[in-house]
C-alpha cells in the first residue's frame, strides 16, 4: 500500500513540476533561451507572496492575485531591457547573463531575508486529506495543485493554439524574420512569452511554497526539476511536459518509499536513464540544439 500511496503522491507532485517546467520550456521553444534564473524567479514569487500574506493578512491564494501580474510585468521588462540583448546564435551570452542573475537573486535574498526555510500556509488545508478506502490518503492541497496545474496547462495550450498571440508566438519561434514581413515585432512577442513564463513559474513557486518549505537557494533545485521534467517529457506539447513532471514526481516519491532521503537522487537517476535511452523524451520531436 505504501507504493500506491507513493505513486499517487508522485502524480500529484508531477503537476507542480509540470508548472515549473512549462515556463522554462516556453522560453526555450520561442527564443532558444534557457533561463538559468528560472527557479529563482519562482522563489522570489514565493517570498513576494509571503510578504503580501504578512502585510495584508490574507491567504496565500489571494497573494497570487498580486504576485502573478507583478511577475508577468517583471518578465516583460526583463526580456525587453535585458534578455533581448543576449539573443544571438550562440547560447553563451544568455547563459552567462541568466546565470549571473541567478547568483544576484539568490544572494540578495540571502542578505535581505533569513536563510531559514520559510513556509506559506493555508491553515487547516495544509494537512487536510481525503481518505479513499483504508490506507489511501490524498492531500487536499496537493490535489488542488495538480488540478490547478492541469487547468493552467490547458489554458496555455488553448492560448497557443487558438488565440492570435498564440499564433504569433508559434510563428516567431518558427521564423522570426519572416514574421516581421507580416508586421510582427518579434521583440514584443518574446517579451509576452517571457511574461507568461514568469507568471507560470510564479504560480509554481507559490504552490511549492505552500506544499514544502523554501529558502533563498531553493531556486537551484526548482530549475533542475523543471529541466528534468522538460527533458523527460520531450519538446513539443504542453502535455508532454505534464507527463514529464509526473514521471519525475513518481520517480522521486517511489524512490523515497524505498530509500528515504534519496528522493532527489532517484529523480536524477531516472532523468539520466531517460537521457541515455530516450534522449528525445516522450515526444517524437528532436531536441533542437
Amino acid at each position, binding site marked *: 500500500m505504501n507504493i500506491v500511496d507513493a505513486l499517487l503522491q508522485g502524480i500529484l507532485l508531477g503537476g507542480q513540476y509540470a508548472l515549473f517546467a512549462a515556463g522554462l520550456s516556453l522560453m526555450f521553444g520561442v527564443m532558444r533561451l534557457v533561463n538559468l534564473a528560472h527557479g529563482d524567479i519562482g522563489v522570489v514569487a514565493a517570498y513576494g507572496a509571503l510578504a503580501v500574506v504578512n502585510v495584508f493578512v490574507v491567504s496565500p491564494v489571494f497573494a497570487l492575485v498580486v504576485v502573478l501580474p507583478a511577475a508577468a510585468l517583471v518578465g516583460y521588462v526583463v526580456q525587453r531591457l535585458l534578455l533581448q540583448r543576449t539573443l544571438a546564435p550562440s547560447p553563451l551570452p544568455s547563459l552567462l547573463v541568466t546565470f549571473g542573475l541567478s547568483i544576484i537573486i539568490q544572494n540578495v535574498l540571502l542578505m535581505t531575508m533569513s536563510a531559514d526555510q520559510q513556509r506559506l500556509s493555508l491553515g487547516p488545508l495544509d494537512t487536510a486529506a481525503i481518505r479513499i478506502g483504508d490506507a489511501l490518503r490524498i492531500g487536499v492541497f496537493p490535489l488542488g495543485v495538480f488540478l490547478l496545474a492541469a487547468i493552467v496547462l490547458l489554458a496555455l495550450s488553448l492560448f497557443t493554439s487558438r488565440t*492570435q498571440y498564440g*499564433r504569433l508566438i*508559434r510563428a516567431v519561434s518558427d521564423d522570426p524574420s519572416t514574421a516581421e514581413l507580416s508586421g510582427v515585432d518579434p521583440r514584443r512577442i518574446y517579451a509576452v512569452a517571457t511574461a507568461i513564463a514568469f507568471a507560470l513559474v510564479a504560480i509554481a513557486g507559490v504552490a511549492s511554497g505552500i506544499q514544502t518549505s523554501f529558502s533563498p537557494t531553493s531556486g537551484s533545485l526548482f530549475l533542475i526539476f523543471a529541466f528534468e521534467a522538460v527533458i523527460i517529457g520531450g519538446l513539443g506539447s504542453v502535455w508532454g511536459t505534464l507527463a514529464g513532471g509526473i514521471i519525475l514526481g513518481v520517480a522521486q516519491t517511489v524512490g523515497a518509499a524505498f530509500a528515504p532521503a534519496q528522493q532527489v537522487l532517484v529523480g536524477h537517476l531516472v532523468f539520466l536513464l531517460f537521457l541515455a535511452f530516450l534522449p528525445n523524451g516522450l515526444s517524437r520531436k528532436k531536441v533542437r540544439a
Partner: protein
Amino acid sequence: MPLLEVEDLSATYGQVSALRGISLSVEAGETLAVIGANGAGKTTLLRAIVGQVAVPTGRVLFQGGDITHLSTFERARRGIVMVPEGRRLFSSLTVEENLKVGISARRPGAWNLKSVYDLFPLVSERRHRRAGLMSGGEQQATAIARALMSNPAVLLLDEVSLGLAPAVVASIYSNLPAILSNGTAVLLVEQDVSQALRVSDEVHCLLQGRTSLAGRNLEMAQITDAYFGYERRTA
C-alpha cells in the same frame, strides 16, 4: 508621386557590396519586374526595400516619406510586404493560421480571409492542413495569400516561379490583375525573362549589383544584352 522610390541605393552583406547606385520607382497599380542573372542582386534589392539588409548609402521612399531607417515590421505595417524567396511558410502552423499571421500588419483593405480564399480556391481547400505538408504551388499560393492578408500597398514577389511547373506558375501570375486592381503596386523578381515581360509594365535589369537597363517597352535584344552584360557594337 510614385508609391515607392529607391534613390541611389547600395547594400552590403558585411564587407561585401551587393548593390550599388540603384534607383527606381513604382506607381500605384503598376508592375515592375527586376531581372538579372543569378547573383546580380535581385533578391538583395527586395530585401533592402523591406529592411532586411544593411543599406550604407541611398534612400527608400514610400509615399514620399523616407523609410530607410524603419525596421522591417514597421515597413510592413505601412504596407510594404514581401513574399520571400522560398516561400518561408510557418511550418508548424496550418494554412489558415499562416494567413492569420498576416493580420498583424493591422491594415484595413479589401483583402480578408474570405476574399483571399475566393482568389485562391486551392488554398481554401487546404486551410486546415499543416503548411509544411503541401505541394510547391500550394505553398506559393499560400505565401502570396498571407502577404495579401496584410493589405499591402506595395507587394514584393521574390522568385515565385522557382521550382514550380509552368502551368502552376501561369495560374499564380493570372491572379496578378486582381491584386493590382486595388491600387497595389507590385515589384517582382523573376528568373524567367519572358514571363516577367508578359506581366510587367516596366523592367529593371541588374548586372553584378548595378542597373544595366531600365525602361518600358524594351526590345528583347536590348534586354538580353543587358542581362548578360554584352556591349553590342553597332555595325
